[in-house]
């Protein structure tokens, strides 16, 4: 290969380090997107044997958002090969033990038993919070856009913004603005109501 062609090859097949913020994101949908970048499928010169995969750095894995009641219902199975060693770990427990595992498994499972997924996963770097490894941070040259919108939390909004928010409705002079309270766990309340109903 001539020097010019060699440089062209280096440029075309340069490995890119992407950043993805998993805050408020569905890990299963994000997993599909991240796997696409890990394999290099977004590149027009993709080839399965071309070694054109990229690195992806996922931050804020701790703040991932599972849909519906997945935190309680989704269960990760593990078998340690000896009898009676099968375990079913719910997502919330997995998350408390290792905040990175839910995201990692989501990416791994999105590849559906592909024989190359162990190799593809090697280029995935997961971090629980905003802090990135000091060796990895300088390499990041692209950001993968999020899939779900991140809402603004009222309790985290600056005070001036909350106070200066325009009045939408005309209120009575006697109207009392209720204080912001935490909403009680309605599911346990619902179960109690059901039980009382059955007893009757």
């Amino acid at each position: 290969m001539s020097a010019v062609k060699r440089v062209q090859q280096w440029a075309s097949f340069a490995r890119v380090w992407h950043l993805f913020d998993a805050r408020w994101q569905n890990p299963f949908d994000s997993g599909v997107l991240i796997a696409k970048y890990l394999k290099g499928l977004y590149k027009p010169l993709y080839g399965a044997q071309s070694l054109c995969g990229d690195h992806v750095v996922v931050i804020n894995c701790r703040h991932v958002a599972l849909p519906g009641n997945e935190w309680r219902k989704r269960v990760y199975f593990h078998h340690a090969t000896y009898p009676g060693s099968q375990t079913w770990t719910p997502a919330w427990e997995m998350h408390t033990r290792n905040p990175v595992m839910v995201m990692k498994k989501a990416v791994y499972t999105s590849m559906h038993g592909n024989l190359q997924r162990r190799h593809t996963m090697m280029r995935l770097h997961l971090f629980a919070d905003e802090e990135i490894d000091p060796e990895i941070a300088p390499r990041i040259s692209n950001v993968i856009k999020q899939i779900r919108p991140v809402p603004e939390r009222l309790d985290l909004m600056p005070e001036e913004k909350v106070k200066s928010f325009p009045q939408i409705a005309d209120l009575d002079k006697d109207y009392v603005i209720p204080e912001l309270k935490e909403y009680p766990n309605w599911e346990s309340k619902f179960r109690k109501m059901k039980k009382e109903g059955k007893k009757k």
Partner: protein
Amino acid sequence: MQNAKIHKNHFYVSAPLKNGIGRYVCQLQRVTLKFCKTRGDSKGIRDFIESYLVDYAKSNPGVVVYLKPRRHRPAMLTMEFLNGERHELSCCQFDGFTVGQFLNLYTKCSGRQESRLINVQYTNHPSIQGPWTPWTNRNPEMAVADLIHDKKWREMYNKAPSATEMVLEMFKQQQISNQIQIEEKQAE
């Protein structure tokens, strides 16, 4: 096909040694027709020798033709090429016409080994605008931006405005229109 063998013999469309681009040289050096004068297997090749062989030899002066009658031995065609490759073809129970067909085929072959064609297309200019790099069609602001800490790069593409943002926007517009009205009144 085994994965190990896929990459062994493969080639893109090309003329070996650029044969034919300037001058064409027939790559077949010599052909040996081995046959038996009595065996039934060699009937086809015998017919070929009687009818078409002399025409073939005249039309391909670069190819040396040898005849090798061998008693009680099967019919064979042995091709030898200019690059030293040798190929043997059994002509048992062939038709005379079939022998001629194969001979014509090998006359047009180069001595290259049987290999897998990767692509039927060939071009000296695979890219007009330049091959893709990760920096093709890339926002030039990214070169100077703080991608890790600046949150605007992470935001969802075409994020719809939230209810809060919509209300604030409406409030702004209301303020502006009120101001305009006030200014108009003052002008009067």
